[in-house]
């Protein structure tokens, strides 16, 4: 039953590069990316410097957002798009002698970004720690990709100093630092909001609730206070340490999540970046951008952490509710077993005596004979029901055994009919061919089907639920169909029945699927292998 955990994991797009070629659906994204890249690349030139392109590189933000959203399989397409843009802008000039170097310089960053995104996603899929809880993987990729891209540039810079225009360790380190800081700023500034907007547009995420006035006031006060402290420290000649702002952004991220921390980061960036776009000395500019990068990293990680915590809390609450439900069911089961036991004692006596009475009165007065026969029949039926219920409710350690489907369906019918009747629903069950045999744990599988029938009965709108069995070329399919609901209110269920049914069916080597058609009819299909079928 360990498979129970499966449905709790949110489905996400496949992380493995199934194909490196973009699909038609990718094309608008790629065209948009090329345009955004062109614009962002030009804006970045304002913060340019010797040995690196820019201290603020928003194009990297678009790049990681696209890779994250559409998958690392687009790496090749992104590289092609960037090459085309750079040929168009003349960065790569096929007629010049240095075209190959320029080409490699253009290819390297998107290639490394793609690899890092692939690595992080693969890791997150396998990890079971907090690192695999969204949005931690994105945070990791956002910081890891720029760092890795700069590191891969290191051997290039050391081996071919004449090409990058820097020489000596000091200048190389300066150039790489500029590279990392520029990419980091671009990624942290743009990737989170871009992804968030894309999620919002496709309905993948909930619109954030309106923040309370108190939260907004708290965030504003903290941010303003941190700026005030910095200005004060600068005025009295203590330099410009950025720790107050850093702590303020971290606070805001931890308290209010990723969106709030991003807004705080935008405010900080809006105050810093116009200053550094003006002519100022390289050391001061780099220091400011590095501080900005650390503020962003800390703020973003704090926000991500708070969001991840919030998600885990929601998950935990959901599981707590499930556990509570399970605990109640356990008590209920113990109670029913006790009740069944208490009933079975007197019922034994009743059935024996009723049968005797029936036999005695066969030749008596018709009235008496009929009454005795009726009592006997009812007592016998009740005995059968009690035996069946006990088999169902008792603790069973039975191994799967070959089981005729007809028997299974009989059990299900006996268990589900009373409830269907009390809901005013007719349970229509097709005749089952006697030669269909499956390998099953009868009690568990009956539970799975009863759960589906129960769901169907509760959701039923037209008064009929049908349970049919059809043989397929791969085994057998049990189909539960109910009509649409028009007037009935939504039942306060939690979907536990379906989860349990799916876990049981999968443990039997089968699959469970549910489809609701346009007319509102729901079909739940259990596909199971038959005994003795060739694999």
């Amino acid at each position: 039953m360990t498979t129970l955990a499966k449905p709790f994991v949110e489905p996400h797009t496949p992380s493995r590069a199934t194909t490196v070629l973009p699909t038609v659906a990718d094309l608008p994204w790629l065209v948009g990316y090329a345009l955004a890249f062109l614009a962002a690349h030009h804006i970045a030139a304002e913060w340019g410097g010797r040995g690196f392109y820019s201290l603020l590189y928003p194009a990297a933000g678009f790049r990681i957002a696209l890779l994250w959203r559409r998958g690392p399989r687009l790496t090749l397409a992104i590289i092609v798009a960037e090459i085309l843009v750079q040929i168009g802008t003349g960065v790569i000039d096929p007629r010049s002698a240095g075209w190959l170097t320029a080409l490699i310089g253009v290819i390297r960053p998107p290639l490394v970004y793609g690899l890092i995104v692939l690595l992080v996603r693969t890791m997150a899929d396998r990890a079971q720690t907090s690192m695999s809880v969204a949005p931690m993987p994105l945070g990791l990729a956002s910081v890891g990709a720029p760092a890795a891209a700069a590191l891969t540039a290191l051997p290039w810079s050391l081996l071919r100093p004449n090409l990058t225009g820097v020489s000596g360790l000091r200048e190389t380190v300066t150039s790489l630092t500029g590279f990392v800081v520029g990419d980091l700023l671009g990624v942290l500034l743009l990737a989170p909001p871009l992804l968030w907007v894309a999620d919002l547009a496709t309905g993948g995420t909930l619109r954030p609730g309106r923040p309370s006035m108190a939260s907004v006031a708290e965030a504003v006060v903290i941010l303003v206070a941190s700026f005030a402290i910095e200005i004060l420290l600068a005025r009295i000649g203590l330099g410009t340490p950025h720790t107050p702002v850093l702590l303020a952004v971290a606070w805001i991220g931890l308290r209010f999540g990723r969106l709030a921390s991003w807004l705080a980061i935008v405010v900080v960036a809006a105050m810093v970046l116009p200053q550094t776009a003006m002519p100022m000395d390289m050391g001061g500019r780099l220091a400011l951008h590095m501080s900005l990068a650390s503020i962003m990293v800390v703020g973003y990680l704090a926000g991500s952490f708070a969001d991840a915590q919030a998600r885990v809390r929601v998950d935990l609450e959901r599981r707590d509710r499930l556990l509570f439900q399970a605990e109640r069911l356990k008590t209920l089961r113990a109670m029913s077993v006790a009740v069944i036991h208490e009933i079975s004692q007197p019922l034994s006596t009743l059935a024996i005596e009723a049968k005797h009475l029936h036999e005695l009165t066969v030749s008596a007065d018709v009235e008496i004979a009929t009454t005795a026969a009726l009592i006997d029949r009812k007592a016998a039926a009740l005995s059968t029901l009690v035996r069946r219920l006990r088999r169902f409710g008792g603790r069973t350690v039975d191994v799967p055994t070959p089981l005729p489907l007809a028997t299974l369906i009989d059990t299900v019918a006996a268990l589900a009919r009373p409830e269907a009747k009390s809901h005013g629903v007719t349970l229509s069950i097709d005749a089952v061919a006697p030669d269909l045999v499956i390998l099953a744990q009868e009690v568990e599988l009956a539970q799975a089907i009863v759960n589906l029938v129960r769901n169907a009965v509760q959701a039923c709108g037209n008064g009929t639920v049908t349970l049919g069995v059809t043989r397929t070329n791969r085994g057998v399919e049990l189909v539960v169909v109910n009509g649409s609901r028009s007037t009935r209110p939504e039942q306060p269920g939690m979907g536990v029945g379906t989860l349990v049914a799916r876990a049981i069916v999968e443990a039997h080597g089968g699959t469970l699927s549910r489809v609701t058609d346009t007319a509102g009819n729901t079909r739940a299909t259990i596909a199971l292998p038959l005994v003795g079928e060739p694999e």
Partner: protein
Amino acid sequence: MTDTACGMVYVVDDDQDLGAAVARLLRRHGHVAEPFLDPAPLLEVYERAPAHCIVTDVMMGEIDGFDFADRVRLLDPAVAIIFMTAWPTTANAVDSVRRYGGLDYLEKPIDEDRLLAAITEGVAWSKAQRSALARTAGLTPRQRQVFDLLVKGHNNQAIAAALDISPKTVEDHRAAIVAKTGTNGIAQLIALAR
């Protein structure tokens, strides 16, 4: 129902009504049946009035059905035991037959036909056991030793060697055993020993 298929049956259940109902049911089918509320008094009187078959509940007060089966087996190896229970488990079902020599394990509410079939089978088995025991009861200790080795398939020489007596003496014992048990040949002797 013929007389040979009917026998003496004790019904043990801590539910008085059920015990009485089962006993009456059995009487209607020709058996001599007696209900008991508690196994302890039955164990006291059992040696004076042994039965062919005992139908017992598993979950009872001080002595449970399995414990009771062990004790009654010591008194009488030729009684058939049938268990019935309102708390059936797979483990108990297996134990009741394999460890406690039960003939059947019935779930309450009782399936009447199955109970009657089991009782008939138990009575027949018990009667066969008793007659076999009766026929070998007259053997002397030495004849009993020879009998035990014979039914295991040993020949006269082997038996003589094993018991440290002469083959001629073994031959004499054999003649006495055949005479006392009224059997004809080794095959019938082996059937008695089962």
